[in-house]
């Protein structure tokens, strides 16, 4: 088991390296804007731009720039400077991470809390009216675009804009000063981010449960005289949940990497997703590179966690 973990960690580091190289190549061979010009300021003369280019090291051959960047990242944990904010990239990302982490954590709790029971009930009461209603609702939630759902909720329930002002609205997260204030500001965003995922997890678990409940060991459990609730939860769900764990790991990893971009934009939450959006618009290459690297790190880490968790969940896996 230990060897397995060590091997996966080493491979993860190699993946990070490869990812950074690919990103670096993409943004330097196909640049969308000239960073030296952006940094030099308005009306900068050609001399000044050349000087800025030299200061930024952009006139060196690309492999030298890449080597420097990699060295800075892997040895000094230094991700360079943001062109648009004139601010160290690492500090920028760390400033934004807590908001994204809080958003993701709350959303995960909600979508598991809604999605899993829905999936189980739907599977157990397959083809009933309840099942059909739940699956139709889930299809609607999956199809609804995130930003549309967010705007609708804002215009219904936000304290500043909504018809029924109950919850804090846009920008409330940045204004909040206490933990509970921030949590309250995230209630609507949590539901928006959780909506589609709850639906997906419900359908996924339903499908998994239907497969599992047809297994022989379920028949044995019933033949043993176990109460049906125990059969469903301890024997059925326990087996059906393992693929969901894999999915969850990936989802959390990608969300932390900035996938909550739309929710963060609609509700104006200062997270990694929103930073990614503005950086793409402003061609702020170092920030984009930094976020992508962080994202890759999260995804790789959560993949690893999920694989290890899988070994704990399914004893058959441990012997590979």
């Amino acid at each position, binding site marked *: 088991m230990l060897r397995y973990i060590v091997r996966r960690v080493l491979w993860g580091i190699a993946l990070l390296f490869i990812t950074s190289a690919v990103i670096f190549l993409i943004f330097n061979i196909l640049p969308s804007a000239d960073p030296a*010009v952006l940094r030099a300021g308005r009306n900068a003369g050609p001399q000044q731009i050349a000087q800025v280019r030299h*200061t930024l090291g952009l006139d060196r051959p690309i492999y030298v720039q890449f080597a420097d960047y990699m060295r800075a990242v892997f040895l000094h944990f230094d991700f360079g400077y943001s062109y648009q904010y004139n601010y160290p990239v690492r500090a*920028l990302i760390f*400033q934004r991470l807590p908001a994204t982490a809080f958003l993701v954590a709350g959303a995960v709790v909600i979508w598991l809390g809604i999605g899993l029971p829905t999936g189980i009930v739907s599977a157990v009461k397959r083809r009933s009216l309840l099942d059909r209603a739940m699956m139709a609702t889930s299809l609607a939630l999956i199809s609804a675009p995130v*930003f549309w759902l967010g705007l609708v909720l804002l215009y219904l329930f936000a304290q500043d804009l909504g018809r029924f002002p109950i919850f804090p609205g846009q920008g409330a997260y940045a204004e909040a000063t206490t933990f509970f204030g921030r949590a309250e500001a995230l209630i609507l965003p949590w539901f928006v981010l959780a909506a589609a995922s709850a639906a997906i997890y419900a359908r996924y678990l339903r499908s998994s449960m239907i497969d599992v409940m047809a297994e022989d060991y379920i028949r044995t459990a019933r033949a043993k005289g176990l109460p049906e609730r125990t059969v469903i939860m301890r024997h059925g769900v326990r087996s059906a949940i393992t693929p969901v764990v894999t999915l969850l790991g990936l989802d959390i990893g990608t969300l932390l990497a900035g996938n909550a971009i739309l929710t963060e934009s609609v509700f104006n939450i200062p997270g990694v997703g929103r930073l990614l959006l503005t950086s793409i618009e402003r061609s702020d290459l170092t920030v984009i590179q930094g976020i992508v690297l962080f994202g890759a790190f999260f995804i790789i880490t959560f993949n690893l966690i999920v694989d290890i968790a899988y070994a704990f969940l399914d004893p058959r896996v441990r012997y590979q």
Partner: protein
Amino acid sequence: MQRRSLRAIVPGLVLAALSLVLAACGGGSSGTSLPSEVGAGQARSQFPPPTSPPSSAKKGGTLTVLFSGDVDYIDPGAAYYQVTYMVDFDTVRPLLNWPPADTALPQPDLATSQPTITDSGKTVEFHLRKGIRYSPPLGGGTGWNKPVTSADVKYAIERTLMPGVPNGYQNIYFKDLVGYNQAVAAVKKTPTKAPNISGIATPDPSTIVFHLDVPHYVGFAQALSLPASAPVPKGYAAKYDSEQPTSTYGLHQLDTGPYYISDYKPGTSITLKRNPNWVASTDFRPAYLDQINIQEGFTDTASASRKVLTGSDMITGDFTPPPESIKLAAQSYKGQMTLTPSGGNRFVALNTQKPPFNNINVRKAVIAASDRNALLATRGGPLTGTVATHFIPPGIPGFQQAGGYKGPSGKQYDFVKHSSGDMKLATKYMKKAGFKSGKCEGAHCTITMVGDNVPPGSDTAQVVKSQLEQLGFSVQLNEVTHDTMYTKFCSVPSNAPNVCPNVGWIKDFNDGQAMIDIPFNGASINPSNNSNWPQLKNPTVDKALDKAKLVTGATQRPSTYGHIDDMITAQAPAIPWDWDNDVNMSSKDVNMVINLFNAFPDLSFISLKNP
């Protein structure tokens, strides 16, 4: 200066979805567009910008300002956006500054009085107030205990030459200082140290003298009203300025104004608090508010505008509210919106250096055919601006002299007369250019255009495209981000397309030179970061512009520049289509004050009704 992102960064899809929801929620629908310049003038007069606080203004309270983007640089030495000035005018004290109602001449701020000019304009001397102290530093730490001296002002200007301080105007307005070229060479050798400009002398701690190579009073003195001349103590800042690749002084800055920046999270928020070391009696600013919270990231500007209008203690910041919000305010929140001429123009630049627009008659035809009311409508119609008829906007000296709202009179300006377009006239010019059918024929009728990929810029580009197609041109439109449009295409002469529809210029200050020199002077064409987008290289215009720099006098200067504006208009380098208004909105319990020079709210003069 070049126009920057004062417009909404709202993804097109969001806007479409939003309009669905807004329509359901009873937002106003279109149909109330006011016609013509007269109507526009009426519209503007319904929403005049207040420039002084009410006599009952009370101290106290916290104002929240909603931004969609961020300031361009938190370092006052590099700041060049109007919206950054909104912050800097209250946090730093340059030698001169602009009270809300003054647009002709800046008033002394750090200086005790207007400067003494001698030696036929080549020597400019200021006396500084004594006993001005610095605020606590942003980012914490010990700060700087000593009072402000003239050496600090000298250092502030010298540091703008460093590559780590990306100041965009020092090479224009400071280049005539004695010793400037040597300073440029010195900083090239040692980019981590601010060079010495020998032409800036500090005979004693409260006197500073500027020696110029050329008598250049107007532009130079007005440049001293920009935040770059606010004092920066070398003993404190040098260590931050020496950092590579960029100076970190901005993140640790010392302020001298009534407020100081106590917290900055890029892209998230800026917090201004009362400067404990500021003395009210030394300042013309009343500073009613206790605290100002700038909240950033409101990319959905329609919701943000609505939030301001229906909420409390808020104002809009850096974005222009979208047309539907402007209509909403005009209908239901009348006292909460102000329209201020921004001191800027918008035009569609035609590349004069390659066919087909190297032919002046083709250019005239395009301008004649253009329905400029339609272009204005893409930004929201007459409430948001006036159709331009030349290039100097209202409020800038030279505007009236160039023809005012109606524009220059005379047969040679006939192509710019009809704001909704004149196809007959356009056809006449096309025939004059050699196209017998009156529409484009032959080799150079496929033309390239590079525009914004988000509204309203993308909408404007689409309208320009369809108007060009009416004249027989086939337009290849490439839509990219705003930055890419400039840095890769329109501002790079070797890569510039035939048409750049989303360009414009905003004054640096209220002077004709600041408005039409760089955008139309052949000498200012750069291989990159070029701002003469039409690449106009007319020797008569260039000579006139050079001579005009030296002209002084309250009547001669405006009339000289007004005349040059008309000369430029006659060359038809671009379609002038908008002198726009800055639209600002406030909550009902805010006593708004607009700074006319900046066309932005003046945070040092705003107060709350119920603090």
